[in-house]
């Protein structure tokens, strides 16, 4: 026994030694490549931040300076007065939150039923959902515009809320179906024996277990609505209804673009969303590729 242990320790030592050696060599070069990669992806946004922190006269110098001589931190307070940022944010928040709530309310029962029951037309239903996921509203923008004109909903929040809900249902149904499937059916059977009805089982037993899935669907839909551009560009015409993406870019067309405020506004719109997105990172790929990566 003792001898065996000794041998093991020795081979472990060798293994550890090799591991350590690999750590210093390969691992350092991996870390360097990784950090260079990160730098490439973050640099444009750092330049965005640097521009947002320049006073306007420094923004427009030719050639431009790498860093501001005076760091105009007050741009982030001034931006609210220089451009109607609060109005844009209000529109974006109303539209995105309403669309997200509709999606969750509709997707949860559909996904739950599809996960637990077989019904005629289920395959067709899921195929329709998947096809919807593939169609971006961009490809249908002309049809959407004509429909919204017929419904007399042009330049309303409601038009954007309804279109965003419809196009984002698919992802939520997919991801929630797989979440509901992962909850053992025995849990529900136990509740059923205890005399719970179907709706009660869903609200009291299943939903609490599916919270991570619902959070993922919520955040994803919210961000997709928050970032949408083409439909908002087409369906809104007054600045009071324009969400952030349209409102901010409409500033570019003006006589003198106040890039520092434009980017300060952009960063205020981007940063919270990136943090939300990172928080659901591990669920995203599965939902987008509909579980086909196996």
């Amino acid at each position, binding site marked *: 026994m003792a001898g065996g242990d000794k041998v093991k320790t020795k081979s472990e030592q060798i293994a550890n030694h090799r591991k350590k050696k690999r750590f210093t060599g390969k691992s350092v070069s*991996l*870390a360097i*490549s*990784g*950090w260079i990669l*990160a730098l490439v992806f973050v640099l444009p*946004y750092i*330049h*965005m931040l640097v*521009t947002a922190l320049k006073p306007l006269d420094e923004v*427009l110098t*030719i050639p431009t*300076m790498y860093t501001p001589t005076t760091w105009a931190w007050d741009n982030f307070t001034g931006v609210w007065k220089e451009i109607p940022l609060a109005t844009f944010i209000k529109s974006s928040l109303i539209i995105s939150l309403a669309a997200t709530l509709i999606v969750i309310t*509709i997707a949860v*029962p*559909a996904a739950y*039923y599809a996960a637990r*029951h*077989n019904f*005629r037309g289920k395959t067709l239903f899921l*195929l*329709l959902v*998947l096809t919807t996921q*593939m*169609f*971006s509203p*961009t*490809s*249908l*923008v*002309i*049809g*959407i515009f004509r*429909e919204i004109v017929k419904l007399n909903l042009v330049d309303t929040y409601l038009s954007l809320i309804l279109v965003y*809900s*419809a*196009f984002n*249902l698919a992802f939520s149904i*997919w991801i929630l179906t797989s979440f509901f499937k992962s909850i053992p059916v025995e849990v529900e059977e136990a509740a059923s024996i205890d005399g719970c009805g179907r709706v009660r089982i869903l609200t009291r037993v299943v939903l609490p277990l599916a919270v991570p899935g619902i959070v993922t669907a919520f955040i994803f839909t919210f*961000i997709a609505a*928050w*970032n949408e551009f083409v439909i908002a560009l*087409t369906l809104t015409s007054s600045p009071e209804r324009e969400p*952030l*993406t349209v409102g901010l870019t409409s500033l*570019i067309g003006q006589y003198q673009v106040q890039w520092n405020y434009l*980017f300060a506004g952009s960063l205020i*719109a*981007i940063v919270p969303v*990136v943090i939300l997105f*990172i928080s659901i*990172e591990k669920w*995203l*790929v599965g939902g*987008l*590729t*509909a*579980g*086909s*990566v196996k």
Partner: protein
Amino acid sequence: MKRSTKNNLGAIPWVLPALGMILVFVAWPAFEMIRTSFQEIDFTGIAKGWTGLENYRTLFDNPDLNPVLIRTLFWVFGVVLVTILVSLPVAQLLNAKFFGRTVVRWIVIIPWAASVVMTSTIFKWILDPYSGILNRIFVDLGLINEPRDWLGNPPEAMLWLMAVAVFVSIPFTAFVLLAGLATIPSDLMEAARVDGATSFKSYREITFPLLRPALLVAAVINLINVFNSFPIIWVMTMGGPGYMTDTTTTLAYKISFRDQNIGASASMATINFVIILIFILLFLRVSKWREVTK
């Protein structure tokens, strides 16, 4: 673990709202768009009656169409190919263990989470002929003698647009491939190493073949996304000068909302619609989605 419902009507309250939303706000616009493409529409949007293939004839008579079609092919396949070629090593790197990997992964997510409109805006500013930082860097490095208008020359502008499209497509693609890499059993790689396979050989013989499903899914989803891509071109060049950096997606939008030729635009969009449908059928074949719905 499925209960068969005796009565298919039981599915209706659970599934109908989702089905309704998709039919009203996805299927109806598609139908409306196709219908419009066969109608004469005046500039106020009122239908004047059926015209058969007249709108398609107008579209094909447009001398700008052929260059746009060729450019779209170049745009879609160029962006997707480069995206995948870059994402393969990026995914490999993000899968390796190194110091700070989690943070690097978070940073790589930023362009995926940030709105493409805002990412395009910062690139437009970086490439600005007067105050752009790229001109400053290139002049300082001695690569160019005087500032250039990077987006002024159409073929060159196209390459910049494609570079931005690759930039925003890499995060999603790398994460799909990363999910694929995570499914490859580590003992398989270990066995190959023990058998004396070089890392290149084990990549070619083991990793790459096992990664194929993920690769195909990433390719098809990217084909659809890049084909539908609108904000990059719209923000950075508006398809100009003239139609010289337009793709079929931005062209359809321009014909309709700028040139007010709704019929011709609907026929362009219908052609785009059919192309996307073909991509979707390709996706369904590739992704074995049936396994998921069972």
